[in-house]
């Protein structure tokens, strides 16, 4: 491997005196201290032969072990194919998937590890064990090739007039810089024509829309909501939506809870948003949008399982812990003539994560 020797280096065979560190570094050591009385590199230690180098019996044994490992690998491949057919997936028996996975996997494992361990053992026990030395050379090209490279560039420059014809060059750079712009514009149709900001500020809820159970879609009577209970709620009609059902649900999901009226601390301006201690809040976390699904009825706290934001239902769902910044929006509700809970309007505040235009 000494074909591209630079004349400053001399080939170093093991156990000769070796060159010191700052030998070929013409570059400045800067803050490194170069001491004159550094301890010299002692050179290569004497080679220690392996047991397989000394004892022909051990060598033979290693050879047998390696072949045995390769043979084992073949057995593994065969076993994998056998397992593929011997452990079919039986539709009626889910446990068959596990067996198929296990035995097919173990067969393949054996096939792979046999080859791998065998090859590594071969290299370690039998292949030539003397370390070899290759000289390094400065990474920079030789002065000759650097000069040549500069020549080529200047020749190319002269032949093309790249620097001389600056108008041509500058207009070219300008033109190339502008070409990607159509590509950027073309991404506009990744989505439709609506204004996402407007979409984010409205949900399916509207005056008179009944509160229904998720996922069955059956309406909820106020009388069914006992103190301490919580309902996962979707708007009436959502379950039947043909189009945009999941998108609507991602905004309209609501949690319905009933608290003892005296424990519910209500904003006087929103006093008519609840009904007899029954309150409805958006289930979509105002942090980054996970469903705030855990309700602790003793403390009236809601907990978002994704990032542990906690909201106090008794106090307008204000944030009491965790990274959320806005209270969960409240859905104003009342009861219709048949005793079912209905919305009085859409949410008055946008649901879900905060965005730039949320307060505009």
């Amino acid at each position: 491997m000494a074909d591209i020797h630079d004349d400053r280096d001399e080939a170093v065979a093991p156990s000769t005196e070796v060159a010191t560190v700052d030998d070929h570094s013409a570059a400045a050591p800067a803050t490194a201290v170069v001491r004159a009385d550094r301890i010299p590199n002692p050179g290569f230690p004497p080679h220690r032969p392996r047991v397989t180098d000394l004892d022909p019996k051990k060598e033979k044994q290693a050879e047998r072990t390696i072949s045995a490992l390769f043979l084992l690998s073949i057995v593994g491949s065969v076993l994998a194919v056998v397992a593929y057919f011997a452990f079919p997936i039986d539709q009626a028996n889910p446990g068959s998937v596990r067996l198929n996975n296990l035995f097919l996997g173990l067969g393949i494992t054996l096939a792979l590890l046999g080859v791998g361990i065998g090859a590594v053992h071969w290299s370690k026990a039998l292949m030539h064990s003397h370390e070899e030395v290759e000289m390094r050379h400065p990474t920079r090209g030789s002065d000759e090739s650097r000069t040549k490279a500069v020549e080529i560039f200047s020749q190319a420059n002269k032949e093309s007039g790249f620097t001389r014809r600056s108008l041509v060059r500058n207009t070219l750079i300008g033109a190339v810089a502008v070409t990607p712009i159509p590509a950027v514009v073309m991404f506009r149709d990744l989505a439709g024509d609506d204004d996402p900001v407007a979409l984010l500020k409205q949900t399916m809820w509207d005056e008179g829309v009944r509160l229904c159970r998720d996922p069955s879609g059956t309406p909820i009577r106020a009388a069914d909501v006992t103190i301490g209970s919580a309902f996962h709620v979707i708007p009436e009609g959502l379950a039947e939506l043909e189009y945009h059902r999941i998108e609507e649900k991602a905004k309209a999901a609501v949690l319905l809870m009933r608290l003892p009226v005296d424990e519910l601390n209500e904003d006087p301006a929103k006093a008519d948003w609840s009904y007899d201690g029954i309150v409805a809040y958006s289930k979509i976390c105002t942090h980054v949008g996970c469903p705030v699904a855990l309700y602790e009825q003793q403390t009236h706290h809601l907990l978002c399982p994704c990032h542990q934001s906690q909201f106090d239902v008794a106090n307008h769902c204000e944030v009491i812990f965790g990274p959320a910044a806005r209270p969960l929006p409240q859905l104003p509700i009342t009861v219709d003539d048949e005793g079912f809970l209905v919305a009085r309007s859409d949410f008055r505040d946008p649901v879900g994560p905060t965005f730039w235009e949320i307060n505009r």
Partner: protein
Amino acid sequence: MSTTTTAPSAGTATQAAPSTGMRFTGWAANYIDERTSASTAVKTLGRKIFPDHWSFMLGEVALYSFIVILISGTFLTFFFDPSMTEVEYSGSYVPLQGIPMSVAYHTALDISFEIRGGLLMRQVHHWAALLFVASVALHMLRVFFTGAFRKPRELNWVIGFLLFVMAMALGFTGYSLPDDMLSGNGLRIIDGMIKGIPVVGAWISYLFFGDEFPGTQIIQRLYILHIMLLPAITIALIGVHMLLLIVNKHTQFAAPGRTNDNVVGAPVMPTFAAKAGGFFFIVFGFIVLIASLFTINPIWNYGPYDPSPVSAGTQPDWYIGWADGALRLMPPNLDWVIFGYTLPMGVLIPTVVMLVFLALIAVYPFLEAWVTGDKREHHIAERPRNAPVRTGIGAAAVVFYCGLWAAASSDLIATHFRVTLEGVIHTLQFITVVGPFIAYWITKRVCLALQRKDREMALHGFETGRIVRLPGGEYIEVHEQLDDYERWKLVAHDEYQPLMIRPDDNGRITVRQRVRAGLSRWFFEDRVAPVTQREIEAQKH
């Protein structure tokens, strides 16, 4: 390229009757070489030397697990359909029968339950992905702590850094594809973070998802990124990474006979090739073994994505944990409203902090090179103790990362150890903010102490455990000197001293120089000088 090879087949043919196999090999080699000049490549690379150390294996694990990912992933693409069209489940997994779900989730279930070996390949793919990111990260730590990013390898460090980012991106896009409840909530979080971007957040989210969240496009879009664009970039980066490895040659640890000007180890053909090739099979076999024994990502337990339910104790794959944890550690109520526009700082601060952290990782080699002003090439991997400040910085970064990472399990830590959730969060906030400084200080002290111990050992030898009573009644423990080979590892490192502030040509001291001198003092003020020959000589008398 005009490579003149000496009249090839003629020479071999006249030598003592080779076997049919040999004749065929010779003919084939000649055939290929006359069309590709492959012999030049063999001549250049065939006996290239690779030094040996267990830690050099980490990068190999990364490369091999990536190949396993390509192989298993290709199998999965034959059966997976990334469509979000809604269908009713009709497969053999009873608990989900009749439930509406996307085609993507359906086919992911079919791979698990209807196709023999499908579950195995899914699990191989997922386990290999976890191992890939882990080995990339460990490989980076090895390179960092041994200073193997120094000249001439700074650019390869940046490429490796990009590969780390690619690994996380590939992991996240892949993890989202089955469209199950867990990964859907992961996407929901991404959506929330995108919406928080100032000015354009709502629009980027709308365009990315092709509609309001979740839309019907996102899985297909992520699929294209996951199986085409990101792998293509990753493969290209790996190619350049390997090419630069060959150009720069591998670093080696200090050992007798090894210098900055040579590389000592095993040649590619045959020893290194056998070892590395065998190791690929071992890594592959190990991944398949795990995949056949341990379940990973049981999507059938989670159900299809639905924006309303969520399970408690959810966690992302490990490499996304630090991002999730960063979100969890923010204190409440940080929406800033400026001129009516809203900045959700609770989301923006962690995002910016993570981006700055990644940027610092990417540019670290250039910062250190500027501070030390060292323009020499470095091919000897440093022992971490011999660069105490760098090692301290690394330890600080690790503690910071791990604090964020642990925060992604804050709820599980709380329930598992029966402590309050608030307590866990506050503790981890402390660990991520103050912990790095403590870790830096302790690590630096430990490094210096280890250097002193090395010095002591180089000068006075090691304790033999043999206690001798002197004629005067004094007891001493006999120390035995190291031989020159053993000592070399302890004394081979360079010593650095802080930069002196000197006026420039105009007699001025620039701010830039002051900053550099300050940083240089920080790096090298506390140091232990390596043992010199004179000290050794003095010791002998």
